[in-house]
């Protein structure tokens, strides 16, 4: 078919019209008849014993309907965790209860204690101010390493310590790795912090619970990336509502970036309260509340060692990571520092031996879970920083050192369990150097020098694992869910099509790209195809959108369902044309009989399926609707080369990103416009992490970065125009579209490129600095330039411990 809307073209997004005209329907736009408003009373201390809650005065205030506390949830479960990790000693992780409302103790600033439900939002807010929790302060623990000391205050009294798990991977390689490092010609060591992030989708979370007494059905409207997962977790583990009596709808969702994957207490609360009160209950997060109740991301402190032989070949890699879980285990938290991180530690390199140790730690902070990239940015940051540091120590070109160690033959079995199916890392590196005009760098550096600025170029070459995941594999690794995806392709009598997908768009543009695929397969206009998502009552059980999995897993399910539809339609067409089924071809919306001029249109066949007068009823059923569940055979492995060019003001330490280029291999691309947009957004978040964004706590567990005044979101003036390319294509070998996924790459590949660029600028300027922790704020860069001794470290206290690098001092947000 002509390429005016099929695979590989960039039609405009159909969803844009409603977003641009103000007719989008986000959860907060939903107002149900008779709805009441919920406001949460939250802890303002990091750790304390909850001796009681005085609700008397609040209960008498105007408009108050009811005040809920933990006692109301006695018959309910806690917020469940969806992944169980097993420690090196064979014990399963420590898994504390995560109550809907605090029971006996509060464990982080923002921990919900009580909820006021009132007639109006203002009345609920006023009454919430009058709820008086009696909290006896306890010493808070924020520093991960201190949290593991024998006498540390315990976040959960019932656990043996603050250690959630101690995971080793690959445990059998441990001794061989130790030996290789001991015997190496050169070992480069680096201690670094992957700073805590807050995802900050622009739409705050919202939940609206509704209950229909006549049918005993509960409905939850929520800002979620995966409504079926919420239905399963909340129905089965928290509220004991069977699936057929529970509907979860995630309508238009204003960005997610991971933080809207998880099941949150507020969702369970609104669903529960609506049934109790027999009226709809709505909760809308304020931004201030979002900072202390949305799951945070990253927050790893790592020591990494890279061993090289005398020819600079990588011989072994060893890492030792402390990963912050926060006060409770969020839905997928345990998987992030382990299986989503350790399995990526080979990177693009032939390193034969890898050992990763991760200690996950409970602290009195907001729970930490997946944020755009989830584990893979942490792996990439370590690798791409240590390779640069090794190059500097050895006096070799960092690009050449990478190339020398690149994996070049595929499939490639890494020493960390995963097998890469395809890739061409030299190609993406070549493309990057071309689009970044690396050859012209020296001339630009000279121009900067004349202006009194230090210019640097930093590179990073990432690999990620997307399209999570083969269900039997993740089951062995501790997942308590399958990770397939589903689709129903419903062909209507006149030939138009509704696709019901378990994937969910919260900005990715499924309604456009998924329709492109169907249009191409059948040869009809994309306008004839409607994509339905985000409602458990309308879509088959699916696992939702995260981990860059939509097109690779959800798209594959849709292709499989469409293939079934086409096969059946061919049978009908064969009957109509009195031909043999094997001779039927479908092209441009016409069925033809090979070698003849007989044809029948798509619409005639679909009509025959629903008006089966002339129809092979003895062989096939009427109708044309098929469902497929697709369980991937492997992860997909996008990769790419990223280059950042910065100018550093040598007087102030201010870093300006003056150029950023990204050359990605995403396999086949459905809609280049959307893919480029995904990369742009990822780059902004990765550059944000590297230079500005930081979630900071003080030693008492107070959240310092709790609003947009203290948490620096990248703004329009902070970023350059990007150069992005996806012309290097090694198609995925194991899914029907040959696609890999593009949603997270930008956030994964960019932070080390930025940091490497700043260090390159300083070192070229004669200032020998070998590491600065993110975010590279002017204060930190300036301090580093004044001598490494003054290096302001990250805000995470664990990075300030005596045994970590550089004698860092207390951080600033």
């Amino acid at each position: 078919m002509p390429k005016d809307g099929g695979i590989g073209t960039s039609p405009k997004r159909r969803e844009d019209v409603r977003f641009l005209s103000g007719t989008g329907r986000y959860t907060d736009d939903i107002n149900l008849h008779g709805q009441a408003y919920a406001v949460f009373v939250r802890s303002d201390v990091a750790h304390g014993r909850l001796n009681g809650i005085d609700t008397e005065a609040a209960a008498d205030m105007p408009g108050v309907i009811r005040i809920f506390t933990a006692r109301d949830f006695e018959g309910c479960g806690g917020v469940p965790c969806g992944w169980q990790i097993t420690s090196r000693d064979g014990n399963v992780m420590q898994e504390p209860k995560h109550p809907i409302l605090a029971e006996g103790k509060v464990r982080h600033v923002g921990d919900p204690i009580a909820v006021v439900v009132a007639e109006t939002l203002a009345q609920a807010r006023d009454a919430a101010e009058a709820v008086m929790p009696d909290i006896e302060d306890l010493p808070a623990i924020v520093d991960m390493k201190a949290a593991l000391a024998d006498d540390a205050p315990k976040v959960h009294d019932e656990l043996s310590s603050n250690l959630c798990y101690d995971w080793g991977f690959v445990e059998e390689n441990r001794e061989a790795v130790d030996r290789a490092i001991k015997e190496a010609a050169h070992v480069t060591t680096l201690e670094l912090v992957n700073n805590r992030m807050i995802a900050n989708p622009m739409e705050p979370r919202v939940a609206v619970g509704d209950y229909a007494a006549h049918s005993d059905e509960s409905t939850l409207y929520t800002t979620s990336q995966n409504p079926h997962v919420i239905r399963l977790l909340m129905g089965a583990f928290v509220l004991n509502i069977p699936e057929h009596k529970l509907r979860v709808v995630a309508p238009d969702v204003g960005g997610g970036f991971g933080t809207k994957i998880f099941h949150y207490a507020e969702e369970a609360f609104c669903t529960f309260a609506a049934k109790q009160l027999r009226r709809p209950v709505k909760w809308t997060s304020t931004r201030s509340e979002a900072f202390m109740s949305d799951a945070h991301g990253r927050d790893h402190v790592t020591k990494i060692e890279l061993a090289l032989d005398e020819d600079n070949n990588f011989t072994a890699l060893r890492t030792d990571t402390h990963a912050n879980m926060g006060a409770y285990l969020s839905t997928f938290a345990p998987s992030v520092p382990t299986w989503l991180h350790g399995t990526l530690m080979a990177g693009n390199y032939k390193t034969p031996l890898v050992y990763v140790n991760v200690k996950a730690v409970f602290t009195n902070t907001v729970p930490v879970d997946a944020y755009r990239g989830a584990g893979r940015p942490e792996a990439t940051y370590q690798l791409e920083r240590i390779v640069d540091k090794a190059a500097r120590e050895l006096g070799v070109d960092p690009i050449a050192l990478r190339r020398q160690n690149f994996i070049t033959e595929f499939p490639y079995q890494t020493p960390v369990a995963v097998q890469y199916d395809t890739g061409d890392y030299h190609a993406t590196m070549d493309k990057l150097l071309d689009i970044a005009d690396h050859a012209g760098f020296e001339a630009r550096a000279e121009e900067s020098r004349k202006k009194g600025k230090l210019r640097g170029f930093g590179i990073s070459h990432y690999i990620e694992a997307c399209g999570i995941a083969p269900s039997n594999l993740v089951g062995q690794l501790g997942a308590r869910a399958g990770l397939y995806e589903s689709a129903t392709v419903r062909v209507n009598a006149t030939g138009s099509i509704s696709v019901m997908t378990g994937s969910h768009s919260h900005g990715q543009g499924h309604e456009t790209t998924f329709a492109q695929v169907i249009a191409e397969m059948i040869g009809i206009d994309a306008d004839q195809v409607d994509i339905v998502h985000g409602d458990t009552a309308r879509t088959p059980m699916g696992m939702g959108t995260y981990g860059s999995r939509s097109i690779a897993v959800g798209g594959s399910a849709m292709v499989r369902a469409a293939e079934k539809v086409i096969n059946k339609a061919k049978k009908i067409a064969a009957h109509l044309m009195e031909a043999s089924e094997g001779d039927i071809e479908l092209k441009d919306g016409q069925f033809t009989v090979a070698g003849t001029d007989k044809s029948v249109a798509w619409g005639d066949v679909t009509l025959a399926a629903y008006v089966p007068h002339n129809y092979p009823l003895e062989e096939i059923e009427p109708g044309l609707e098929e469902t497929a569940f697709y369980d991937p055979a492997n992860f997909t492995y996008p990769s790419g080369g990223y280059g950042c060019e910065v100018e550093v003001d040598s007087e102030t330490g201010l870093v300006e990103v003056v150029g950023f280029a990204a050359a990605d291999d995403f396999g086949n691309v459905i809609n280049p416009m959307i893919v480029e947009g995904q990369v742009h957004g990822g780059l902004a978040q990765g550059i944000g992490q590297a230079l500005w964004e930081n979630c900071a706590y003080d030693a008492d567990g107070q959240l310092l970065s709790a609003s947009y005044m203290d948490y620096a979101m990248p703004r329009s003036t902070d970023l350059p125009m990007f150069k992005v390319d996806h012309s290097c294509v090694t198609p995925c070998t194991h899914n029907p579209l040959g696609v890999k996924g593009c949603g997270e790459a930008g956030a994964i590949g960019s932070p080390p490129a930025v940091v490497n660029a700043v260090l390159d600028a300083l070192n070229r300027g004669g200032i020998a600095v070998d590491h600065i922790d993110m975010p590279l704020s002017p204060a930190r860069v300036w301090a580093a330039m004044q001598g490494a001794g003054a290096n302001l470290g990250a805000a995470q206290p664990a990075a300030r411990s005596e045994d970590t690098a550089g004698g860092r001092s207390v951080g600033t947000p």
Partner: protein
Amino acid sequence: MIKIEMTVNGRPVSGEVEGRTLLVDFIRQTLLLTGTHVGCDTTQCGACTIHLDGEPVKSCSVLAAECAGARITTIEGMANADGSLSSMQQAFQDYHGLQCGFCTPGMVMAATALLEENPTPSEAEIRHHLEGNICRCTGYHNIVKAVQAASGQDVTPVAAE
């Protein structure tokens, strides 16, 4: 309660508000114009940007009662008379200047106001003008292009850079 009247998207409207009611809440909850969004509680994200007597204003930063008698335009009032998208709205679609769409109404309102003041802004001027509007999805690249295109400047088509 205070009774107020104003003109919104060319139509006279009225309602009762408390003294503390923000303009954005009046727009969303009383007038049910939900295209104007709330992204923060510290007047820093710009998702709530509307035009107040022709000027771009964050509607979470003014009280509804202060706006009695004012002329207000929201995203719902931006389309052309025939219902087609305005040139700015159209440019956002053409250049993929939105993803989740949550910041978009505020962006369109702010960008439209810019062109009224400065019909052919440079990239730096566009970025400077939109500094008060946070977008978490796009990295601003395509928003800048959309505004350049809406102002009639030459822009590389999407997916051809």
